């Protein structure tokens, strides 16, 4: 009971507060922005035809109604919350009458599948390689790994992505240039194979950089652990190396590493943008990009809300898992 009251409840409240503030800001920003989304929608609709002023006013009213822009700002705010709590993000401005919900539902699987997997793979790789390289820091392979990853790390992501794309999709067309899969979607081997083929290059582009980052972080954390009294003592007592590396060193770096993994996972919806645009991958990032260039406010808001919930939830989960990774963190 105290666990629930003193540990879980405050964190849940904090999570709710973050989401509340996030939603409110998402609501306010387009409304204080000098660009009026209604005017933009109207001008798009009237670009190729002449409407009488009466017709324009009628159209404006119906758009306002449709997009929840009627009434005082407070009424709008209440209506906004009602819609969100119903899980209704409204229609897309540009792909009208498609609903934002449906668009997100279609693309979210691609993003979670690609970026989620990559973040986890890079985390595991960087963690294990970084720890081993730090422990065996005088071996040739350890120096080789460190030198190569430190060289790769500062390369800007979009350059790395373009180089991969040019090399392996254009000059040596081993991998497809655009898309997420080919054929009829389903759990068939032929379809899954095309999905893997399409995901390989974007995955590589993410994994290389993320592994380098994780490697550097693991190495720094590990070198501190190696110098610790308990690792030195375990060495002196001739514990097996495997035991020392995993239970005495890596286990003690789990707290910051798991935090970072959680936050990286929570942030994949923003992280998706460049990757998906460069590789024309059909996920949330591509949807966001299209929404931004066409001023599709509902769509932008929908994805923004998704990111807010994603990050808030990730940090909630990370927070709740702390005592599991470090007994010194008390349930308080």
């Amino acid at each position, binding site marked *: 009971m105290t666990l629930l009251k003193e540990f879980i409840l405050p964190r849940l409240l904090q999570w709710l507060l973050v989401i509340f503030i996030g939603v409110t800001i998402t609501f306010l920003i387009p409304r204080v922005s000098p660009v009026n989304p209604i005017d933009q929608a109207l001008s798009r609709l009237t670009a190729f035809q002449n409407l009488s002023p009466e017709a324009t006013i009628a159209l404006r009213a119906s758009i306002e109604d449709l997009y929840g822009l009627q009434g005082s700002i407070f009424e709008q705010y209440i209506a906004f919350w009602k819609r969100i709590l119903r899980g209704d993000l409204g229609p897309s401005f540009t792909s009208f009458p498609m609903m934002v919900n449906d668009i997100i539902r279609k693309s979210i699987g691609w993003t979670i599948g690609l970026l989620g997997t990559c973040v986890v793979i890079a985390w595991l790789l960087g963690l294990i390689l970084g720890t081993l390289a730090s422990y065996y820091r005088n071996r040739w392979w350890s120096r080789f790994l460190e030198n190569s990853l430190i060289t790769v790390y500062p390369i800007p992501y979009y350059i790395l992505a373009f180089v991969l794309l040019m090399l392996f999709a254009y000059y040596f067309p081993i991998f497809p240039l655009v898309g997420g899969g080919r054929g009829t979607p389903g759990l068939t081997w032929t379809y899954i194979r095309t999905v893997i083929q399409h995901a390989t290059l974007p995955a590589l582009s993410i994994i290389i950089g993320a592994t380098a980052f994780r490697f550097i972080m693991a190495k720094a954390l590990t070198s501190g652990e190696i110098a610790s009294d*308990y690792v030195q003592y375990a060495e*002196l007592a001739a514990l097996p190396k495997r035991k020392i590396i995993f239970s005495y060193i890596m*286990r003690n770096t789990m707290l910051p590493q798991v935090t970072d993994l959680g936050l990286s996972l929570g942030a994949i919806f923003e992280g998706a943008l460049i990757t998906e645009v460069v590789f024309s991958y059909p996920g949330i990032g591509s949807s966001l990009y299209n929404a931004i260039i066409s001023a599709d406010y509902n769509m932008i808001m929908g994805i923004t809300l998704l990111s807010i919930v994603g990050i808030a939830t990730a940090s909630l989960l990370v927070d709740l898992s702390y005592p599991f990774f470090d007994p010194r963190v008390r349930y308080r």
Partner: protein
Amino acid sequence: MPTIVEVKDLKAYYHTHAYGVQRTVKAVDGITLNIPEGQVYGIAGESGCGKSTLLKVLLGAHKPPLYVVDGSVRYLFDDAQIATLSLDENTLRELRWKQVSYIPQGSMHVLNPVRRIEDIFHDFVAAHQQVSKAESTQLTRTYLRELGLPEKVMAAYPHQLSGGMRQRVTIALATILSPKLIFADEPTTALDVIVQRGVIQILKEIKRREGSTFVLITHDLGVHANLADRIAVLYAGKLVEEADSRTILKKPLHPYTKFLIQSLPRLDDRSTRVSIPGRPPALDNPPDGCRFHPRCPLAVDKCRTVDPAMVAIQPGHRVACHVVTEATEEVRHAATA
């Protein structure tokens, strides 16, 4: 009393260079001693005089920047004579914990903070003998009970134990495989008096049960008075006096040992506490001759240039001091004349 560790003319220096400056700290500089089997051999001296360094070399656990420059260390076990300084890693691993064990200085932090005590014991036991988790847990439970430690510590994490309990658990961890030889570095330092008593009690209990040899380092002569059979006094990387603890405590000869004894707090008379003038020398540039001469009230000219050798004043009582040696010789001359 047979010897179990034999140290001959041991020199161990720290070679460091920082910002292009080479520095050599002569932390152990020509020490010769024999540690008798089955006793508590105490090593005393102010902090910074090289006690921990000496212990690391005796354990074969020295690593850069600490280098053994000269001398030898041998373990004289019943079944084997082992030249400790030239051992390969595998033999050293074989020796550790089963034969030779170590209770480190500042052992507050030697227990892995994310593992339960019983898992730590399993790690250490399983590293040296084939045991299942259940067997090692049983072994640990029995051993802790014999040492009078509460069973509930087994399920605890290190941070949940008090400092004194952590120290006693560490001592149990170091001695659970009944090693012949146990090196303990300041096991009671940083504990309050009552907790110290518990730690001393546990060390006595282990010695009584196993008949192990203890090499006990502490700057606290009060602890030595409680535990040690013999005491070696170290000053600035050198041995200055060695005898059975009664002699050291009641009839010390070396001026430095005398200071150490006088500076002990006494129950009967508080006013006679004397603190040693000056401070111990920096070991990267120790004084010539007797290293104690800048602080010694008896120093003569010879002390400033000639390094006094350890001389057996009586059987089992060695002192390194020109004045003491000469006084003894005069007495001998007078006796023979």
